C-alpha cells in the first residue's frame, strides 16, 4: 500500500517537473514572465517557510530582504560585475542583517522578532528611496542586464525562465538537505516543543536565529533573480505589502510543509491572473478566495491534503486491522 503511494508520488513529481521544463516552450512571453515570477516568489517564500514553518518565528521583513537582494544585483551588474557577484553580496548581506536583527529581538521575547522586522521593513524602504547616491532613489534602476551563463546569453524570456527554474531547483535541494540534516531536525524540535528542545540541550536561540538568517538570505537570493527578471527596480514594490504577501503565501500553501511555498506562490501569483477576466473585481474575488480557503483549512492547502491523507491512512489501517482480526478468528 505505502509502496504504491510512494510510486504515485514519484510519478507525480516527474510529471510536474517535466511539465515545468517542457510546457513553457509553448507559452508566450507573458506566460513565461508569470511562471518566472512564480519561481522567484517561491524561493522567497521557501526562505520565510524556514523561519516561520520550521523555526516558528514571524518575520515581516522578507519583502525587504528581497529588496536588498534586488538592489545588490542591480547595483553590481550596473557597475559591470557579473550577477553571481551580486548574488554573493546579497546572501552575505541578508544573512548578516538577519543575524543582527534577530539577535536582540530573540533575546527579549519570543514574538518580538515580528515587531522588529516590521520596523526594519519600513526603514529598508526609506533607505532604498532616500539614498539616491546608491539606489538612484525613487527613479529606480533601469536596464538591468540578464546574465550570460557559460557563454550563453539569457536575454530572451525562455532562457531566463530556465535560469529561474534552475535556481528554484538548486534552492529546493539545498533546503531539502537542510531540513533532513541534524540542524533541520533541531529546527523542528524547536517548533514542536521549545521547552523539551531546551532540556535536551539544544541552544534554542542560536538555532532560531540561524533559521531566520538563512531564511532571510533566501529572500536575498529571490531578489537577485527579481531584478534581472523585471530589468527595472524602484523602492515601491519592496514595501511592507510584499512582506505581508509572502507571509500569506506561506500560510496559504501550508506553513511547515516543504511544498507549501510552491502552492502558496501559485495562489498568490497565478490566481489573480486567472481571475483577471472579471475586470475590476479580480482582486476582490482573490481576497474572498483566500479568506474562504483559510476558513476551510487554517493550515493551508497542504493542511487539507494532510488531513485527508491521515484520515485515509487511519481508515486503511483500521481496515487492515479488521482483516487481520477476522483472519485470526477461527473459522466458524
Amino acid at each position: 500500500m505505502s509502496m504504491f503511494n510512494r510510486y504515485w508520488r514519484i510519478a507525480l513529481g516527474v510529471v510536474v517537473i517535466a511539465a515545468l521544463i517542457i510546457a513553457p516552450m509553448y507559452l508566450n512571453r507573458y506566460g513565461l514572465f508569470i511562471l518566472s515570477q512564480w519561481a522567484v516568489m517561491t524561493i522567497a517564500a521557501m526562505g520565510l517557510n524556514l523561519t516561520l514553518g520550521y523555526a516558528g518565528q514571524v518575520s515581516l521583513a522578507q519583502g525587504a530582504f528581497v529588496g536588498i537582494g534586488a538592489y545588490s544585483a542591480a547595483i553590481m551588474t550596473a557597475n559591470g560585475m557579473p550577477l553571481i557577484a551580486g548574488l554573493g553580496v546579497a546572501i552575505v548581506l541578508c544573512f548578516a542583517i538577519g543575524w543582527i536583527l534577530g539577535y536582540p529581538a530573540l533575546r527579549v521575547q519570543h514574538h518580538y522578532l515580528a515587531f522588529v522586522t516590521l520596523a526594519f521593513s519600513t526603514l529598508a524602504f526609506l533607505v532604498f528611496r532616500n539614498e539616491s547616491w546608491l539606489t538612484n532613489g525613487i527613479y529606480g534602476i533601469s536596464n538591468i542586464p540578464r546574465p550570460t551563463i557559460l557563454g550563453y546569453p539569457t536575454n530572451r524570456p525562455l532562457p531566463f525562465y530556465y535560469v529561474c527554474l534552475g535556481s528554484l531547483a538548486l534552492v529546493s535541494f539545498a533546503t531539502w538537505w537542510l531540513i533532513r540534516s541534524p540542524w533541520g531536525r533541531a529546527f523542528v524540535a524547536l517548533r514542536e516543543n521549545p521547552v523539551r528542545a531546551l532540556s535536551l540541550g539544544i541552544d534554542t536561540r542560536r538555532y532560531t536565529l540561524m533559521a531566520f538568517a538563512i531564511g532571510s538570505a533566501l529572500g536575498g537570493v529571490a531578489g537577485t533573480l527579481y531584478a534581472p527578471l523585471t530589468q527595472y527596480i524602484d523602492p515601491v514594490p519592496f514595501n511592507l505589502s510584499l512582506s505581508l504577501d509572502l507571509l500569506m503565501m506561506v500560510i496559504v500553501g501550508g506553513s511547515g510543509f516543504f511544498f507549501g511555498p510552491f502552492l502558496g506562490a501559485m495562489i498568490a501569483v497565478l490566481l489573480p491572473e486567472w481571475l483577471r477576466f472579471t475586470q475590476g473585481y479580480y482582486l476582490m474575488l482573490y481576497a474572498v478566495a483566500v479568506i474562504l480557503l483559510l476558513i476551510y483549512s487554517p493550515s493551508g492547502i497542504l493542511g487539507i491534503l494532510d488531513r485527508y491523507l491521515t484520515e485515509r491512512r487511519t481508515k486503511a489501517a483500521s481496515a487492515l486491522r479488521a482483516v487481520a482480526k477476522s483472519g485470526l478468528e477461527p473459522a466458524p
Partner: protein
Amino acid sequence: MLDLLIAGLATGAIYAIVAVGFTLLWQTSQTINFAQGEFVMLPAFLMLAAMHVGAPFWLAIVIGMLLSLLLLGLGFKMLLVDPMLRHGVLPLAIATMALAIGIKEAVKQFFSAEASPFPSIVPAGDISILGRQVALQSVGVLALAIAAVVGLTMLLNRTSIGHQMQATAQNPTVARIIGIPVERMILMTFLINAFLVALASLLITPIYLAKFSSGEVLGQAAFIAAIVGGFNQVRGAIAGGLLIGVVDNLAAAYVSTQYRAAVPMVLLILIILLRPQGLLGRAEERTV
C-alpha cells in the same frame, strides 16, 4: 514648537482611538486585525452612501454607526473570527490581511477611486489658544478622542461589565469558571471596537478625506502605536498613539522630512530592546 505639539497630539489622538480597539481585540480574542485601518475608512463611506440616498447628516451618522456595529463588529466576529479562532493567531491575521484588500477593492469598485470631501461635525475655522492659531477641527478631534478614551476607561474600571471584560481579557478560562459570560464579553469588545473605528472615521475623514486607500497609513500607525504602548494595555495604546503623533511631527521638524517615518520605527526598536513590555504594558508571561 507649540504648534507642532498640538498638531501632533491631534493626530496622535486618532492613532490612539484606533490603537485602543486594536489592543482590545488582541486582549480578549488574540485577534491581530490587519484590516483595522480599512475598518476606519469604511464607515465614512457608509455615511456618505446614506447621505447619497437622502438622509440628513445626523441620520447618516446614526446609520453609519449601526451598520458599522453590524458589519465590523458582529459580522466580523461571527463570519471570520469565530471559525478561525481556535486555529491560532497567524491564519486569522492573514485572513484579516485578505479582508483589508477586499474592503479596499470593494470601496473602489462600488463607490469611487476619487477622494470625496466629508462634512465635519466640528465647525471649520481657527481659535486662538495661548496666542496661537489652532484649527477648531484639531481641538475637536482631540476633545472627542479624550472623551471616548475616558468613557472607555470608566466602562472598564468602574462598571461590572468592564470588570468582567478585563477578567475575560486576562484569563478566559478562570473567567468562565467564576461564571462570567465570556462569549458575550468577547462580542462586546468587538462591538466596542466597531464603535471606536466608526468614531475615528467620523473625526478624521474631514481631514483625510473619504478615500479607499486612506486606511493604509492609519492602520500601520495604529499597529505601531499599540506595540509601542505595550500591546496589552488600553492606556498603553493611548500613550503609544499620542507619542507616535507627536514624535512624527517633531521628527519632521528637527530630524529630516525624508526620514520622518523612520523615527517612530527606531523608537519602536529601542523600546523593544529597553522595555520589552511596552511603555505602560505589563510583562507578559512567556508562553513557552
